[in-house]
């Protein structure tokens, strides 16, 4: 059954088309503006966050260091200032931004895929699974790197996928994944694995702070090498999200309708779960378990950008980066003693009440 697609003689229809097209373009323009605003906000945040810390560095020094690293000749720089700005602060700010982007996009994918507003890498136990994978490798003494890739993210990926599978199995009831039990299963798996991580660490006789690092998450002492660890995972996860965002939209209608519309449901779901697990594994392997970013950011962005996953993924990545950069600034400046808080503590303090709000709100029960 084929019809001529554009009846040029029908004025009404062409008016309709022009109107729909202009609305579509308007949406695209607003999206572009949102991207621009968030992008500028990100650049500003990176600079500002780099300037904040115990040692005062001027904006001029930051600009000079960045320019010199980009290959511009800027004259002599104080060695200490350069190390603080480039080696300590900027790398950490960039890393926290990338981790925020990873966790937020993983949250978007998990929420869309599982049709669950409370799903995110942390509540599903995937983050703790990844942390367990890393802890196991560290205990076994596997480290170093080959071909520029650290084995730690691979351990994290294995742990993330394992935890994901366990949660799916636990919440499955007669062939269907129950929405209500999904998060419960995530918490069970997460609690159990957190206990195992503690066990591993005490067997390994490491300091308590290291345990806290994996369970609460922190960027303390992280640098460019970790940015390198994370980037391939972030890129792969984002690419999977970008390629399959339309399928995510359709999957939000449920399994049957997705099938009717021509989505190869099982295969696409597997790829997207892999994408979200890659994002989580990359993030956790460099920063430990940081909760609530993946939960809160997609909801905030959805209010502004609507339900379409293409836009949701892009804007959530940027917003997640923004939020975690500032959460980490709080983590390292909040205590007057100059001691650092784990950034996971800050994100949980900010995100916990939001989680509660979601549980209570009509939105999460009625609409979706």
């Amino acid at each position, binding site marked *: *059954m084929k*019809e001529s697609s554009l009846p040029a003689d029908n004025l009404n229809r062409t008016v309709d*088309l022009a109107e729909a097209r202009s609305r579509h373009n308007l949406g695209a323009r607003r999206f572009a503006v949102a991207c621009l605003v968030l992008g500028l906000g990100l650049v500003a945040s990176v600079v500002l966050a780099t300037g904040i810390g115990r040692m005062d560095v001027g904006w001029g020094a930051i600009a000079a260091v960045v320019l010199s690293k980009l290959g511009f000749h800027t004259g002599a720089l104080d060695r200490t200032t350069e190390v603080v700005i480039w080696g300590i602060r900027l790398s950490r700010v960039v890393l926290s931004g990338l981790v925020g982007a990873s966790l937020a996009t993983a949250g978007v994918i998990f929420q869309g895929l599982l049709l669950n507003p409370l799903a995110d890498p942390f509540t599903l136990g995937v983050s703790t699974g990844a942390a367990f994978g890393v802890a196991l490798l560290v205990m076994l003494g596997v480290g170093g790197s080959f071909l520029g890739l650290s084995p730690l993210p691979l351990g994290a990926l294995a742990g993330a996928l394992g935890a994901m599978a366990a949660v799916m199995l636990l919440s499955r009831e007669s062939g269907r994944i129950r929405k209500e039990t999904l998060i419960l299963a995530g918490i069970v798996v997460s609690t159990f694995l957190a206990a195992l991580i503690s066990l591993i660490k005490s067997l390994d006789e490491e300091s308590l702070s290291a345990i806290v690092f994996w369970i609460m998450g922190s960027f303390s002492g992280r640098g460019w090498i970790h940015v390198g660890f994370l980037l391939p995972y972030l890129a792969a996860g984002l690419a999977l999200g970008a390629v399959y965002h339309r399928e995510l939209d359709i999957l939000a209608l449920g399994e049957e*309708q997705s099938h009717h519309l021509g989505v190869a449901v099982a295969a696409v779901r597997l790829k997207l779960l892999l994408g979200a697990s890659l994002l989580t594994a990359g993030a956790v392997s460099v920063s430990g378990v940081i909760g609530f970013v993946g939960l809160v950011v997609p909801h905030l962005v959805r209010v502004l950008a609507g339900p*379409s996953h293409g836009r949701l993924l892009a804007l959530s990545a940027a917003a997640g980066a923004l939020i975690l950069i500032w959460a980490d600034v709080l983590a390292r400046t909040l205590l007057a003693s100059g001691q650092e808080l784990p950034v996971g503590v800050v994100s949980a303090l900010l995100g916990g009440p939001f989680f509660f709000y979601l549980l209570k709100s009509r939105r999460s029960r009625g*609409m*979706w």
Partner: protein
Amino acid sequence: MVIRVEALDLGYEGRLVLTGLNFQVDRGEFLGILGPNGSGKSTLLHALSGLLPPKKGRIIVKSEPLGGLPSRLRAQILAVVPQSTDVRFPFSCLEIVLMGRYPHRRRLGTLTDADLVWALKSMRRTTTAHLKERPIIEVSGGEGQRVVIARALAQDPEILLLDEATSSLDVRKKLEIFELLKFMSETRGLTVLCAMHDLNLAALYCRRLMFIKHGRVVVDGPTDQVFTPAILREVYETPMEVVRHPGHQRPYAVMLPLSPGTREDEAAMEALEAAQS
């Protein structure tokens, strides 16, 4: 011939629902699938849509086994309007209808004018054009169902499967949808298969009827020949007469009250109550 069903057995875990199905559907046919509750109408549509793999036998769609068709190709040929659709994300109705273009769109391609035209045309046909910008979660059940029908039409399918798709619509909207389906089947060669409960709506629009009962096809033939009191009584175990409207000559089923014997249990229950007190 667009659909051929050969020696088909259908069922779920350890339970056969339909057995020994053999039939063909030609291009442009308008087939109503009728039968009492639980007779297997929905199961048959599930299988024809590719959701439920056959226990035995084959479903051939356009000379290809249904199970062997890649998902996107299958969705270009076959569209489905399910019984009810529950959308929880606030997509606009136009976005929902545009999802019908998914099997035709390239993976990373942008939205083309042809896609938009198809979506708008389908919305006009189902009188939902005014809902374009409304979020699907805010429209009424009947409007939502028509949006889903528009989405199925936007798939530009050759076969349309409807499972009780108009049950939630009022009389006028029901007739509008069936007029549209009739138009599409007569002028565009769309093959329509709909499972339904409304006998008279079926008699009015379907040119062929298939009655299913107890997991078997009781009778399958042109509406004029099979829409008879004897067959209706047998299938529904209900006293019925078929009259003809003097104007348009379509058969019309009239239900009669059940015979008094069917409620004889009531006396026994009253006796039981009396004994208790």
